[in-house]
């Protein structure tokens, strides 16, 4: 028996129901829509559908999606990082299980239903609108539903648990000894956080950003429920080409473009982060070079210094 014998059923299942259909979509994307009643034809192959997908009408939706994807991921990181740190470091250990369970509840509530919850909250005649008017923060009814801002609130809400959980795991893994060692060496709480805890939690930050950004870019439901005409995303564009317009060739090209945009953005993002971190890394290397000499005090401290050096270099 070959070593992978037990994996053959899963392999076959995914080949038939994932690889083959996606390959078919890639194939469709090089074709065209023949007449009103056809959905796709492949007797003439070209890149024309890709050019069409990038024409001004659709290009603005791609830009809009990218904007929501980047802004949403950044907001998730800004909101989620302090929460994850609080859960892993500041909250009493006995309550951590409960806190994780609480983060998981919205994560496992039906995606569509919780988005509808936001539709109710943000509605112009809803209670939030009334409350804000009574307090005097806004003059008229709340005018946010069916705009890009509503979609942004929706995606931040929907993907926030995916940011908090990996960050929590990463902060939890750093552990108390390393932080205490850093403080023993004279670093304040901010310095400890920025120079020791955060760099050690980097895998969690990367996992969180990817777990949020990738599904967010392909989101269809949030934009459908909260977006209206102004908050369009590529997911809806693809869906409408397959359903309403019956143009499978163009829809396929858009789907492939979406995957390409996600991959290119992740690659560019990784490159930018690497370039930005370059001067910080070289500076930290210099500082940490002196650390073992100063840390004659104890094993723990020099261990901490060594460990952070390993991570930073």
């Amino acid at each position, binding site marked *: 028996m070959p070593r992978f014998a037990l*994996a053959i059923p*899963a392999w076959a299942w995914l080949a038939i129901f994932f690889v083959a259909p996606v390959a078919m979509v890639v194939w*469709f994307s090089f074709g065209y829509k023949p007449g009103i009643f056809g959905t796709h034809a492949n007797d003439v192959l070209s890149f024309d559908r890709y050019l069409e997908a990038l024409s001004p009408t659709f290009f603005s939706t791609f830009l809009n999606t990218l904007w929501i994807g980047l802004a949403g991921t950044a907001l998730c990181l800004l909101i989620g990082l302090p929460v994850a740190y609080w859960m892993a470091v500041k909250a009493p250990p006995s309550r951590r299980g409960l806190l*994780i369970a609480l983060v998981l509840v919205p994560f496992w509530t*039906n*995606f569509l239903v919780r988005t*509808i919850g936001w539709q109710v909250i943000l509605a112009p005649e809803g209670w939030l609108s009334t409350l804000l008017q009574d307090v005097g923060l806004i003059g008229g009814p709340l005018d946010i539903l069916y705009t890009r801002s509503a979609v942004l609130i929706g995606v931040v809400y929907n993907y926030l648990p*995916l940011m908090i959980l990996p960050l929590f795991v990463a902060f939890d893994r750093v552990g108390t000894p390393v932080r205490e060692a850093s403080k023993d060496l004279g670093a304040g709480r901010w310095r400890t956080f920025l120079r020791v805890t955060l760099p050690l939690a980097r895998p969690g930050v990367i996992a969180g950003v990817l777990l949020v950004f990738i599904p967010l870019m*392909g989101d*269809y439901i949030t934009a459908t429920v909260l977006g209206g005409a102004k908050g369009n995303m590529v997911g809806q564009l693809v869906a409408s080409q397959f359903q309403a317009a019956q143009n499978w060739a163009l829809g396929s090209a858009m789907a492939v473009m979406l995957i390409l945009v996600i991959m290119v953005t992740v690659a560019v993002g990784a490159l930018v982060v690497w370039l930005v971190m370059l001067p910080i890394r070289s500076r930290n290397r210099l500082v940490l070079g002196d650390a073992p000499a100063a840390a004659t005090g104890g094993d723990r401290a020099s261990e901490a210094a060594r460990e952070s050096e390993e991570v930073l270099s």
Partner: protein
Amino acid sequence: MKRSWSDVALSVWGVLVFLFLFAPIIVIIISAFNSGRLLVAWDGFGFDGFAALLEKPAIQSAVWVSIQTGFIAAIVATVLGTLAGIAMARHPGKWVFWFIGLLLLVSVTPEIVDAVALLPWLVFLGQDLGIGLFNDGIVRLVVGHSLFSTAVVSYIVRARLVGLDAQLEEASADLYAKPFATFRRVTLPLAMPAVLAGFLLSFTLSLDNTIIAAFVQVSGTTPWPVYVLSALRSGLRPEIASVSTIMLVLTLVALALVALVLRRAGDSATQIARTMTGN
């Protein structure tokens, strides 16, 4: 010890974010008891929404389709994923690299792409190739819902077994157990907590699946989330919130069971969090 202002600020932030996370869920649960005609407009307290579950066959059918699909999809994903996970953990080799690559591809592909790809593919299988099985609504839903779950179960089972030494299996083989007996009596029980967790996760993932379901469903077998999606266009009534509340309670019971199983198996809160999010 006096708490510093930054600790206080962190706690306040934490509580605020938790309120944010629960706001729409609380709104939905409150709306479930709205006796009015529209979900958005509060009319009065009542159980009319819950009564709709008993009165409307369309809702009953949608919930039943969801539960059936969830159950079958979970079985498919658990069987395929468990076998694949065991193979990856116990028979490693170069193939694991490629297989994990495929699983990663399955997990990062946007659901909408899976959905638009499966629709013509199932039409091709069912109508062009004439395989009648793929014209069945439940089969189509099961296929769509099992893809991501298979990847998740594979990860979970592999992670569990990689953490456990293979000595027990070697001992079993030394004691003249046939490979299948070792598999059934040693490997499978070792992997069981991960298998159960994977099964319940797959079930909830399937209950939640809206996008793929909306594309591959055939009329007559509409699952609950797709029913909600179409209600979105025709006007949301409080019964949507009521049935969703019941479904939420069911999901939470399933998840509490997962956590319990994992805790029994000795996982820490952190490990449970990792397992439950599929990484």
